[in-house]
């Protein structure tokens, strides 16, 4: 019996122009983690934004939910080569969170419960390109996927979308984070395939 094939077999990737180079499509949602999964109860969760002068904005769970909420559907691209298309999230835009922050800093470090960090230029978080998400597929974001709330920066590789987010620090000088100091690319643009140092 002839095997059932989808399309042209080996040409599948070439037929998916929505995928960045070197990525393959998944239907499930793989869980990657560099350490134990923090379980932070929402009533003890907080998010801070700290400017380079030390000035700090702070939201608890209720205050965070009182901010304008946005629903977004985005594609995810993990540096381990899987991509997941059309994922649905609800959260707060970084444009909203950073609206009242006075800063001349050009860089941001995201800090997570558990100690994870990742860095990016401030500009990558603005202009409706990034959110702090608390709901995935109409359900509260599970701890495995970064709940209570995670950063969502879908136009960069997924390691930049820090799970278990608790702080954003604005810095005048770029400060490479957990993976960026250990061999991964400082910028991490999947469309330019910036996976590793030197890419």
């Amino acid at each position, binding site marked *: 019996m002839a095997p059932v094939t989808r399309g042209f077999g080996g040409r599948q990737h070439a037929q998916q122009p929505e995928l960045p180079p070197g990525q393959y499509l998944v239907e499930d949602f793989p*869980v*990657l*983690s*560099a*350490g*134990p999964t923090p379980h932070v109860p929402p009533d003890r969760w907080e998010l801070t934004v700290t400017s380079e002068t030390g000035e700090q904005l702070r939201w608890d769970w209720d205050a965070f939910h009182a901010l304008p909420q946005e629903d977004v559907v985005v594609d995810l691209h*993990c*540096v*381990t080569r899987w991509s997941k298309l059309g994922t649905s999230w609800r959260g707060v835009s970084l444009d909203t969170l950073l609206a009242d922050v006075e800063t001349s800093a050009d860089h941001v470090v995201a800090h997570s419960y558990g*100690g994870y960090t990742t860095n990016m230029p401030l500009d990558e978080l603005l202009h409706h390109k990034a959110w702090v998400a608390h709901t995935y597929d109409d359900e509260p974001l599970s701890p495995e996927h970064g709940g209570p709330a995670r950063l969502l920066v879908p136009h960069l590789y997924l*390691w930049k979308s820090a799970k278990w987010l608790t702080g954003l620090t604005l810095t005048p000088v770029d400060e490479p984070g*957990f*993976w960026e*100091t*250990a*061999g*991964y690319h400082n910028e991490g643009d999947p469309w330019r395939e910036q*996976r*590793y*140092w030197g890419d």
Partner: protein
Amino acid sequence: MTDHEPTHLTDADEAAVDDAYVDGNALAGDLLEIFAMDMTTAVGTCGGCGRTAVLAAARVYRRAPGVVLRCAGCSHVLGRIVRAPDRVVVDLAGLRSISARLPD
């Protein structure tokens, strides 16, 4: 002793002698010996809590973009290994020291 070794030391020369290094090529033999050993039986000291244990007793997280080694006592990151197509990056900055037994 080389021809360049000063024969009479002034105070200024003494500082130069204290800084008498050789270049890193001299490490080739030491590093080859160390990195050819099975390091899982080496004893590491955690830079976070000071716990001392064989590396085999540490916790390894590999469902991640790289391999992460954590202290079983305090979860401090002891090391990270990232494998790119053309290189491997090893960071053991979280270990205060590693003690490996030499073969008999």
